[in-house]
């Protein structure tokens, strides 16, 4: 049952565009899948390896800008950003890793948070390369319809799921979790903790960057405030994983569905304005209190609650 679930879900999703959904619903599905990808990427580093990053917008942004700059300066298609962002993001991940991975726990989190901000400010100021606050506009959209964008992000998500699964079930996965549980013990058991933390960071960053490059092509416009956003990218990434279930295979996908739908729902409430941040915050607190392991992580607990509800 567990084995056939992923391919079944993939096939069902692949059939989705045949339903003739409205452009709005296709957009929602694309966003959900994109967030699932980012969540799975974060989960590798934060969930399995225990290095909680508050700066994943850095990688998302570098990926997005790789695509944007290739289009804007090199005259290439923005889609080249998908493969080429791997190079740019790996380079930035190695630098960020060199600086932040020597820090432990909350200090690592703060370090990555600072990196995200530094990259945003840098991008705002490197006008000759990035156009600064003006942002980059992709003038010729590849497709007007959403179908192909949907299939591209779906393939990225399927590959990501496959890669994460393979990694976690291999030696790498054991090493990541060992590092999360006790860095000193891991080190004394022959695990080069610095090296494997860098591997986790690079893998996580590259996948996030590919999502960023996709975002540029899909949305057709990026600016530093959007793709390097502390709240709307870095924090939301963490929330997606926490709500869904840290260190679970399906947590990020479940979290993405809930977070995207919730964001849409809150947005549709009139006259809420900035208060939607507050609502988001309250939701996070409620989830941390009642489902500390997320929806997937606390599934047994949830089942029990629903069963109780039905019998009484």
């Amino acid at each position, binding site marked *: 049952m567990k084995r056939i679930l992923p391919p079944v879900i993939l096939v069902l999703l692949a059939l989705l565009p045949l339903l003739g959904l409205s452009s709005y619903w296709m957009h929602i599905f694309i966003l959900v899948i994109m967030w699932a990808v980012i969540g799975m990427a974060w989960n590798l580093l934060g969930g399995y390896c225990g290095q909680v990053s508050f700066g994943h917008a850095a990688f998302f942004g570098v990926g997005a800008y790789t695509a944007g700059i290739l289009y804007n300066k090199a005259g290439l298609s923005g889609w080249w950003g998908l493969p080429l962002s791997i190079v740019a993001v790996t380079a930035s991940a190695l630098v960020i890793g060199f600086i932040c991975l020597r820090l432990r726990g909350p200090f690592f989190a703060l370090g990555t948070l600072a990196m995200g901000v530094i990259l945003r400010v840098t991008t705002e100021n490197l006008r000759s390369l990035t156009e600064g606050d003006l942002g980059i506009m992709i003038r010729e959209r590849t497709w007007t319809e959403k179908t192909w964008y949907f299939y591209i992000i779906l393939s990225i998500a399927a590959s990501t799921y496959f890669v994460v699964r393979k990694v976690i079930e*291999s030696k790498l996965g054991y090493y990541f*979790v060992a590092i999360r*549980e006790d860095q000193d013990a891991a080190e004394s*058991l*022959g695990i*080069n903790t610095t090296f494997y933390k860098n591997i986790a960071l690079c893998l996580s960053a590259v996948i996030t960057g590919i999502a960023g490059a996709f975002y540029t092509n899909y949305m057709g416009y990026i600016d530093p405030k959007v793709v390097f956003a502390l709240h709307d990218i870095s924090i939301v990434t963490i929330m997606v994983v926490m709500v869904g279930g840290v260190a679970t295979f399906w947590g990020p996908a479940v979290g993405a569905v809930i977070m995207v739908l919730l964001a849409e729902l809150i947005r549709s409430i009139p006259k809420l304005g900035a208060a939607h941040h507050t609502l988001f915050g309250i939701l996070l607190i409620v989830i941390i209190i009642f489902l500390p392991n997320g929806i997937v992580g606390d599934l047994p607990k949830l089942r029990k609650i629903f069963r109780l509800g039905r019998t009484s």
Partner: protein
Amino acid sequence: MKPLLEVNGVSRFFGGLAAVTGVSFSVKKGEILGLIGPNGAGKTTLFNVVNGFYPPSRGEVLFKGKRISGLKPHQICRLGVARTFQVVKPLQRMSVLDNVIASAFVRANSRARADEIAIEALRFTGLYDDRDVISKGLPLGKRKRLEIARALATQPEMILFDESCAGLNPTELGHSIEIIRKIKERGLTIMVIEHHMKVIMSISDRIVVLNYGEKIAEGTPAEITANPLVIEAYLGASQGA
């Protein structure tokens, strides 16, 4: 024959505190060397220097004639020196089996091989029936044995046991002593820190005594029990306590 491990004039300072000062001794291949001394004598610190957690402030450590001080713990483990922790460090949210698999990967080049090594280590330490227990829920005696199983799974030539028998009930104690003896029979070289005098005297081939970071005696168990300096150090410590 050249000793397997040589500790040459090792000192380790923490700020102004000299935890270990000018300690020298060597461990021969295949022997059990006991390391004793009152609380705070610097025994664990010495292990931390040998295993690479702390570089020595002075002196050096040689393993098979090669300098290992200055290397990282994971490198020293790969060279063949494993250790257990006095304050146990299980990988809490992993099962007992996964704990041991994670350490078996140092030598194993496939998952299947790692499983094999891990299961062997679990059978050897009598933890096989607990393999699926999440190690957070393990009682202390078994956690201490998990430390041993993990060290074994790295397939070392030498193991440093830091109080693997402390806090055990008599049955568990007997079990752990048996395990250490069996490890010696396999040809591994062992260093043990232990407060339990009967245990250390019965299993050690030779004993090194530390007091306030300095080596005050070295010899066979019989020589050590008769050494006035050692008696004084222990009496002094118990009078002070």
